[in-house]
């Protein structure tokens, strides 16, 4: 899982109080695509969208839409490509190469693989999106930041240092946008967490000595 449901599941006891999700993003390592493809028939509560076959829509209004996205660890974070397939073609976003597998949760007999918070936080901050989708993604990043430990932030800094200057700038730029966002219903409140965002901005500025 790589999307807005992650901060909910990272909360103590997977309390799910931070974000009201609109869909469920499932990250598929490209090396596992064939294995997933063989099991798609088990998704009997969902059907592929005619418009975008990587999106599976639920038959019941009680379920969220599934959005399969590809992860290629070797990819440049600024690139993207389509993994062609007649059944499940995937958009493979380079920023997701920053995401790695983290803890596992078991809920209702289902095992869920969560990403490591640092990588997901960086993926959200390095991605350049605009409009409502962009704001929601930054607020998801805030939810991840909210649940991050000191060790997660140390790991974030390590990953951040490895990015090239243009991407580091994008991360800091997105933090400034996040700091100035207005609150949205069903999302973490950015106004009450501005101090944490400012502290992270300061830390990343210090991590790579670049003029603002």
């Amino acid at each position, binding site marked *: 899982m790589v999307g807005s449901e992650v901060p909910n599941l990272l909360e103590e006891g997977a309390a799910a109080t931070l974000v009201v999700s609109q869909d469920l993003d499932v990250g598929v390592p490209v090396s596992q695509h064939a294995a997933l493809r063989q099991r798609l028939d088990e998704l009997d509560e969902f059907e592929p969208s005619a*418009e*975008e*076959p*990587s999106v599976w829509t639920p038959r019941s209004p009680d379920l969220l839409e599934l959005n399969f996205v590809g992860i290629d660890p070797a990819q440049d974070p*600024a*690139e*993207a*490509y*389509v993994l*062609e397939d007649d059944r499940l*073609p995937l*958009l493979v*976003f380079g920023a997701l190469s920053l995401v790695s597998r983290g803890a596992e949760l078991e809920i209702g007999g289902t095992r869920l693989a969560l990403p490591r918070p640092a990588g997901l936080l960086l993926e959200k901050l390095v991605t*350049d*999106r*605009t409009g409502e989708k962009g704001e929601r993604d930054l607020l998801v990043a805030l939810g991840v930041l909210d649940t991050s430990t000191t060790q997660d932030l140390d790991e974030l800094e390590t990953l951040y240092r490895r990015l090239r*200057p*243009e991407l580091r*700038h*994008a991360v*800091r*730029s997105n*933090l*400034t*946008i996040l*700091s*100035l*966002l*207005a609150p949205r219903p069903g999302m973490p409140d950015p*106004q009450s967490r*501005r*101090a944490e*965002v*400012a*502290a992270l*901005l*300061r830390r990343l500025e210090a991590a790579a000595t670049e*003029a*603002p």
Partner: protein
Amino acid sequence: MTAVQERRLRELRSRVLVRAFDHRQRRHARGVWFRLRRVLALAREAYALPRDEAERLIAEGHRPDPVGRELEPPRIVLFVPAERVAEIASARPLAVRLSADLLSAECLALVPFPTGPSTT
């Protein structure tokens, strides 16, 4: 590749090109918005000040942030300790956000977060 995927790829690549341009131009006019957002992000509180109060603060040794001079018309943007702002009866509190109210203020006093920029 479906039409939707093709469109999303094209949009992403366009944004990457714009971001690369923004990064190359970041030390020039193109980077002003980032620099303005950055000083606001480091501010716990923001106040609109009358010009004479802003000039008094400068005379006391508070240095204007350079980003104010990069805007047109120029603004005075000062980081000031909370105790000093509290002494200015005419200081009008503003939400720290890119609002019309904040952007139209000629003189801004920003109170830094505890680990924020120096106020002098």
